[in-house]
């Protein structure tokens, strides 16, 4: 995972609340089996409307999304994060996120920061006054700067540390493998067990 410290780029106002993951990426795109190439699927239904904000020329190449409250609620699909990332977004700021979405974002190097509703409104106004303006989202100081405005955002310390260090989750956990094994040896026998398949000979 690449290290993330400061994200700078064109900021887009998504002036809607309750943007669920079905809107971020409709279910039909979940059939793909790859982990990349979802840029065309992002906000697919809304992008059919020529007036939708991402279709405006000033917002080409956007990297920062400023969304209304409760962004990324609903389905757990990580594709929502991949689609945002493939489109070019590196940071999303919203007053509130769906829990699973926020977790997924941290794991994929997409910075998801919580910012107050007043600041969102101010930033939206600033962007509308000057469409195409760049925002700078600084993970070190946990602030976003856009034009005259500098506003704080909240992100949990652990996710922040992992983003700053670019650390892979599984590798981190496997440092505790001895403890996992010890835990497994003490597990009660009544706990559920499936019937695994025999591995093919020669595996």
């Amino acid at each position, binding site marked *: 995972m690449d290290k993330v410290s400061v994200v700078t780029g064109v900021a887009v106002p998504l002036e809607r609340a309750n943007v669920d993951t*079905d809107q971020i990426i409709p279910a039909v795109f979940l059939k793909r089996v790859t982990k990349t190439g979802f840029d065309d699927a992002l906000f697919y239904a809304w992008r059919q409307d020529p007036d939708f904000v991402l279709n405006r020329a000033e917002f080409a190449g956007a990297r920062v999304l400023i969304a209304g409250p409760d962004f990324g609620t609903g389905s757990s699909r990580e594709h929502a994060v991949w689609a945002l990332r493939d489109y070019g977004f590196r940071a999303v700021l919203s007053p509130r996120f769906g829990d699973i979405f926020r977790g997924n974002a941290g794991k994929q190097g997409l910075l998801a920061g919580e910012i107050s509703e007043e600041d969102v409104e101010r930033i939206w106004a600033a962007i509308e006054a000057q469409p195409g303006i760049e925002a700078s989202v600084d993970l070190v100081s946990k602030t976003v700067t856009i034009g005259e405005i500098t506003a704080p955002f909240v992100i949990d310390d*652990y996710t922040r540390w992992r983003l700053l260090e670019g650390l892979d989750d599984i590798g981190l956990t*496997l440092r505790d493998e001895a403890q996992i094994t010890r835990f497994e040896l003490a597990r009660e026998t009544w706990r559920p067990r*499936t*019937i*695994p398949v025999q591995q093919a000979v020669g595996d």
Partner: protein
Amino acid sequence: MNHVSPAVPRTLAEKVWDDHLVVKGEAGSPDLIYIDLHLVHEVTSPQAFDGLRLAGRPVRRPDLTIATEDHNTPTLDIDKPIADLTSRTQIQTLRNNCAEFGVRLHPLGDIEQGIVHVVGPQLGLTMPGITVVCGDSHTSTHGAFGAMAFGIGTSEVEHVLATQTLPLTPFKTMAITVEGELRPGVTAKDIILAVIAQIGTGGGQGYVLEFRGSAIRSLSMEGRMTVCNMSIEAGARAGMIAPDQVTYDYLEGRAHAPKGEDWDAAVAYWKTLGTDADAVFDAEVFLDANELEPFVTWGTNPGQGASLSGNVPDPSAIADPNERSSAERALEYMDLEAGTPLKEIRVDAVFMGSCTNSRIEDLRAFASVIKGQKKADGVRVMVVPGSARVRIEAEAEGIDQIVKDFGAEWRFAGCSMCLGMNPDQLAPGERCASTSNRNFEGRQGKGGRTHLVSPLVAAATAIRGTLSSPWDLGVTANSTSEGVNA
């Protein structure tokens, strides 16, 4: 959750958490939690297996992992190759991955195939006091057994496959107490829709919900699963219900349930799991079951619901500006006028199925209302059992015949019209009364309009052609109604 010494009173959720602690997180880092059961399906797993392959890692515990095919599968002609090429590829990818990594898969045509959240409980794999994860938000369903069960993203699926653990920050706890007696015709689905309307789609964020109170205790396992299933629609990661005799009776004798001495040891432990009398929740919510009526949604998120006897709300009367504009948008999308009585809303389709309401008792409740009746003209009615086993069970009881005589379609098991991913979809503009859990824009097909309802409301609506409950049929459904009145 605050982890203090065991002498301190703890909630159900805290007890399960503490018993799965592999490494206690220090200085703000998460705890490492052991996962007892990992359920896998075709949609959220391909990229996870891909990740393992890239890193050269095996599945750590294939014996704690089980897979099924549900989201993409057709519910007709299941013996033919899947017509949609991308769906077929995704299913084939799961089959290849399971074979390569040694994971048990219940494919289309297998008796245990079905919606992942129906399959786990039916096999007896879901049990009290365990941790369950799946790359699917409705994993919360399994909390009905007193398990800690929650949905995870694909990165986490890979993490669990590789390590059988997850780094997690403790959830907060919320008690949702539902006291009283449900009236005939009012079901588990109405409870949870009313809870979501009360606390909002973000109200449960960061919490594990524990459903308590006499109305919850009176529910069957199927009803409890319906309630926990939709915890995610209130924004919560998980919902839980303390195990009791109803839980043990449901489990005993199932294929993977503990046997003999193991069973006795398990039950003895399960009996210790309930929330201690003096335990403190981070938040509490109360609901009066006596007052509840059949509930439906009118909008495009599951919190936008009302009693069926009410009207489509007027957005201008909503104080919160975000809620107001989201209600305005919802009414526009749903093509509804403020003030219209909900019962006058005419539907084009009725969908009876999904992991919320596709178990045998749900089908029985639906059948008890439609028996001997004919569906309304012009309404398409689909009945989709949650698993192949439920389908067979229902057929043994003659439910398939009741459904067909009524003029409805009897399908093979799968997620079906719950989401627009397989051939079962609404056409643009079509309106559906659906027993599923999400009424988001386009959820059941592009441009489709969804009203979330209970199986009893679905049945009455299929008869009358407008949103209706058994109360409107002049009969009382005193049959099981998701076990509420059993």
